[in-house]
């Protein structure tokens, strides 16, 4: 940041924090550009995803039917919770074999990605700036966002995954003919005049589910991140008010955010199960 001898202004600071590190080296200009990929989101989601499955695998590899340790206990608690929810929502034991583990992964993965929000907002970006500058780059262009779930592409990527699962199970459970029949006859009924309306409603439903699914998580985490950035700005005023404001507001928001990150991870998992469960039900 602090290049050319001047500290960034508040808006420069915020924009810097909200710009992804991508393969172009500068902020993405178009709203949709499939040639761009966010390196920071991919890095953190893959590292945290690997950590997630590593932790779960570690618990699973040592799983014993005897007295469980604390670590095994917490993983078992999660598994039981997800298995119970899956059993209540997805009424197909065959589908649950994949959907329940998926829901568990999604919950833990998203929870950990969200939890990156609780790290000091400047910690990792500042380290990255140092590394980038040491490599001869301009730290003003050393962008880094550590919360992968505050990236709309990432959350919509996951919700699109859920959409694909829904389409897969629709075809698997109802057959291609059955599903096409449902697309044109539900929700209003089997009448040639109603076919276009029914089909339009079905398409809107799928799009709305997927977009709201991804947008909900993204919106919550993006807003949370933004508030952390604003609180950090308050502290940067280096006054007594700024200092105490930063400490108090930062503490309150971080504590409240523990609830949000857990809740959003849980909601994403539950909606995944609900949408897949709906794909199993015939109208």
């Amino acid at each position, binding site marked *: 940041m602090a290049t050319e001898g001047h500290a960034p202004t508040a808006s420069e600071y915020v924009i810097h924090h909200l710009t992804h590190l*991508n393969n172009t080296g500068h902020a*993405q200009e*178009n*709203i*949709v*550009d*499939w*040639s*761009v*990929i*966010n390196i920071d*989101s*991919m890095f953190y*989601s*893959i590292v945290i*995803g690997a950590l*997630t*499955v590593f932790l*779960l*695998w570690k*618990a*699973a*590899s040592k*799983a*014993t*039917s*005897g007295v*469980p340790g604390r670590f*095994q206990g917490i*993983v*078992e608690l999660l*598994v*039981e919770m997800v*298995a119970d929810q899956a059993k209540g929502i997805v009424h197909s034991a065959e589908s649950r*074999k*994949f959907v*329940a*583990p*998926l829901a*568990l*992964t*999604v919950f833990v*993965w998203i929870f950990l990605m969200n939890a990156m929000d609780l790290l000091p907002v400047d910690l990792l970006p500042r380290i990255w700036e140092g590394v980038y500058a040491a490599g001869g780059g301009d730290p003003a262009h050393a962008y880094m966002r550590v919360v*992968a779930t505050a*990236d*709309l*592409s*990432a959350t*919509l*990527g*996951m919700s*699109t*995954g859920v959409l*694909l699962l829904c389409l897969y199970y629709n075809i698997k459970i109802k057959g291609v003919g059955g599903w096409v029949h449902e697309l044109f006859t539900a929700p209003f009924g089997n009448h040639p005049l109603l076919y276009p309306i029914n089909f339009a409603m079905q398409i809107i439903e799928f799009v709305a589910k997927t977009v709201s699914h991804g947008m909900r998580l993204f919106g919550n985490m*993006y807003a949370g991140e933004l508030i952390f950035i604003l609180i950090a700005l308050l502290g940067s005023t280096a006054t007594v008010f700024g200092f105490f404001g930063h400490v108090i507001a930062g503490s309150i928001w971080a504590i409240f955010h523990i609830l949000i990150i857990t809740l959003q991870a849980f909601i994403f998992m539950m909606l995944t199960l609900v949408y897949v469960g709906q794909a199993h039900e015939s109208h």
Partner: protein
Amino acid sequence: MNLNATLIAQLVVFFILAWFTMKFVWPPIVKALDERANKIADGLAAADKAKADLALAEKKVVEELRKARESAGDVRASAEKQASHLIDDARAEAARIIAAAREAAEAEAGAATQRAKEALRDQVAHLAVAGAEKILRREINAEVHAELLSNLKQELH
């Protein structure tokens, strides 16, 4: 707030992680949980069975105690009976022995009396004769007066 290829990459990562969990995480944990559930169910069943066994054993103990008490009573009754029998026998034997002893004693006493009487009779006869001798100042011919003496003896009976 832009869309880009991150979406596709994240989608792929999403399925890879889910696949990994399905393959390597979920089955062992669920297996352990099911096994533990079975173990607990077995343990509870065993506890129930043990409880039932205990109740049965207690019942048996009570029954055995009752039987033992009963047989002890029988033993005591028969022992008492036997004891009283023995006492009765002993008493009868004692009575018999006493009776025999008394009889023997009586017989002895009778014989002794008889002997004493005989002796006394002889002595009395002698005394009478001696007395009569002194009174008559003469010798009495015992053979002459044998009849008289014999009569006297008879009278002293």
